[in-house]
């Protein structure tokens, strides 16, 4: 099945625009795409007329060109007929925004929809969803433009059973500086399901990491999904809701009681190297670090900081998250010490964590990072930066990123998230180095790299 009409549409019909109510979801969708995105947009309503000076077509087949994507926001009862019309006139695919299907017990209506679409190999997202958001291409979310927070274009894709969760994470992607390649709200996932999008995104050149918000899989579907994810060359992250068991069930065996639905879900994911995010902080941290690095590490962390306390906190967190912080040999320490500036040579502690002290300057961080990047006992460098130290400048982010680009060893930065440190942060992020805004998140970023492999 060809998904390009859904995610790379050049033309789009918005079916169900209202001629009276400008707040109607279809009108919002029309307005936010029309003349704002490169996609050519056609409004459709059986009554015809005009909207914002554009002709409203009575039906999709009246549109004088083939349409790639139909966004459908009409009463549920009408949707099967409209899908049939779309197929009839050669439309590429659809996003069915309308609710009123399986989620309220109208499985019959939903099944009719799927049967029609499947017969014609016609891809559709939904129903009961927000649909598709592709930066700079198309946006089928019925949320007014001025209310949305749009992440920058990037290489993390997110597929969500819940529209609200997707929109919320897009907002947080923006805050954290995570770029989005594609956001899809799949709602009732009647036809296009997680596994279909996994297969599409694996091949999408704009996507490097794929995140899923999953409420549950159908019978046997979880197995197919994880086996496909295990074969994926790109890291896959899953966050699951509905973890707590539904009341106390009488179980007749130890195994049945120990292998609850969520325990199985969680451990099977780990078995095949799908990274399970247990909460929102994990999801955001994992997305950010895996959008930068897709190669798994063993988890041997080198820590560089200007504050002993930050180093100690990071070591504790590393150990709690199954990461090692190996002590450097005295020879390694000596070679690092040689290159440090005079003022800190005698006071810096270099065993790992490397505490360069509050008197360190840019050069010291750069030289320590360069040394750690060449030591084989370290496979990831955590750089805990305190921009309020007088010796640190805004250039340091770009300079340290340069070391990663030369040496290829994963580098993760912690910088407090304050506007005045923006240039330092961008120096990292624009050069492909993830930046966390807490020590814990920095450690989670390293953990993601350790967990994106079968265990």
């Amino acid at each position: 099945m060809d998904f390009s009409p859904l995610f790379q549409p050049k033309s789009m019909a918005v079916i169900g625009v209202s001629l009276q109510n400008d707040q109607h979801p279809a009108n919002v969708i029309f307005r936010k795409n029309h003349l704002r995105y490169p996609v050519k947009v056609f409004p459709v309503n059986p009554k015809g007329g005009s909207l914002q000076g554009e002709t409203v077509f009575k039906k999709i087949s009246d549109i004088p060109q083939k349409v790639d994507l139909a966004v459908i926001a009409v009463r549920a009862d009408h949707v099967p007929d409209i899908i049939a019309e779309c197929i009839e006139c050669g439309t590429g695919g659809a996003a069915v925004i309308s609710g009123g299907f399986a989620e309220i017990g109208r499985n019959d209506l939903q099944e009719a929809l799927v049967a029609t679409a499947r017969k014609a190999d016609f891809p559709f997202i939904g129903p009961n969803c927000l649909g598709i958001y592709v930066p700079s291409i198309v946006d089928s979310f019925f949320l007014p433009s001025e209310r949305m927070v749009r992440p920058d274009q990037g290489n993390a894709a997110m597929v969500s059973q819940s529209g609200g969760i997707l929109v919320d994470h897009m907002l947080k992607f923006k805050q954290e500086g995570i770029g989005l390649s594609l956001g899809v709200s799949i709602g009732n996932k009647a036809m296009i399901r997680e596994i279909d999008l996994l297969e599409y995104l694996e091949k999408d050149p704009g996507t490097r990491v794929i995140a899923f918000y999953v409420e549950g899989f159908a019978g046997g579907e979880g197995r197919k999904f994880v086996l496909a994810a295990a074969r994926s060359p790109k890291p896959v992250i899953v966050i699951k809701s509905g973890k707590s068991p539904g009341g106390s069930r009488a179980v007749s065996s130890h195994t049945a009681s120990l292998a609850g639905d969520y325990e199985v879900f969680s451990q099977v994911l780990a078995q095949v190297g799908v990274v399970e995010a247990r909460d929102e902080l994990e999801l955001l941290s994992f997305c950010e670090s895996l959008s930068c690095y897709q190669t798994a590490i063993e988890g041997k962390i080198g820590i560089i900081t200007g504050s002993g306390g930050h180093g100690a906190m990071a070591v504790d967190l590393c150990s709690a998250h199954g990461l090692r912080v190996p002590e450097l040999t005295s020879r390694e320490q000596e070679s690092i010490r040689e290159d440090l500036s005079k003022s800190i040579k005698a006071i810096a502690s270099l065993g790992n964590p490397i505490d360069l002290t509050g008197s360190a300057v840019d050069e010291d961080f750069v030289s320590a990072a360069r040394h750690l990047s060449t030591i084989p006992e370290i496979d990831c460098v955590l750089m805990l930066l305190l921009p309020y130290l007088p010796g640190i400048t805004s250039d340091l982010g770009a300079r340290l990123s340069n070391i990663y680009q030369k040496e290829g060893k994963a580098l993760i930065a912690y910088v407090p998230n304050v506007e005045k440190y923006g240039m330092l942060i961008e120096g990292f992020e624009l050069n492909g180095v993830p930046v966390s805004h807490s020590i814990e998140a920095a450690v989670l970023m390293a953990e993601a790299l350790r967990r994106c492999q079968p265990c």
Partner: protein
Amino acid sequence: MLKKGNKEILDASRNNGWVLEPDAKTILHSYGIEVPQFIWARSLEGAREFVRKYGFPVVGKVISPRILHKSDAGGVVTGINDDKSLGDAFQRFSQMEGFAGMLVEKMVSGIELMAGAKVDYQFGPVILFGMGGTEVEIYRDTVLRMAPLAERDVPAMMSNLKARSLLEGYRGSKPVDVGALTRTLLAFSDLVMDIHEFIESIDLNPVLCSTEKCIVADARIMLTTV
């Protein structure tokens, strides 16, 4: 491939909802999984004959389609060391509901592990492995994997247990026979893949592992209700 004899056992057990322990052990044995030397004694004389051949000590367990949780019902006697205790146990069991005989088997020792299987709605057959015994639900030191298992899964599963150092030899104790444990788990995985359409879950608990061998001391196969 499901062997004919095993299929017959499963079909015959279907109405009961689960497979009687001696039948379950017969199935395990057919997959090369080690179980203690045992007999299904329908009379006290049968039990005595077993003891004459293999000697004391033995374990006696009630066999009854009505008694799933044998220990809870007082249907297990371990460390039977003389003819009188053997007779007492048989006598007591024969009064129990649905009595169909007594399972008499050799005592075995080792670290108590457990292996289990469940057919999960989303992920199909999964294998559980970990520390066994009657308190497994308290300590919950187990790991889960999708079946079938590959050989490389076994060391990874062992290393994910909190009590892994017990298996590796703790404070002077000898490590368990990892080869035997691996063979047991892989054979169990084969069995699970063959019969997953019939089962809801399986408990092999305890699996007693020592330096020389791994032996399944108790087995419960719960069947799907159709």
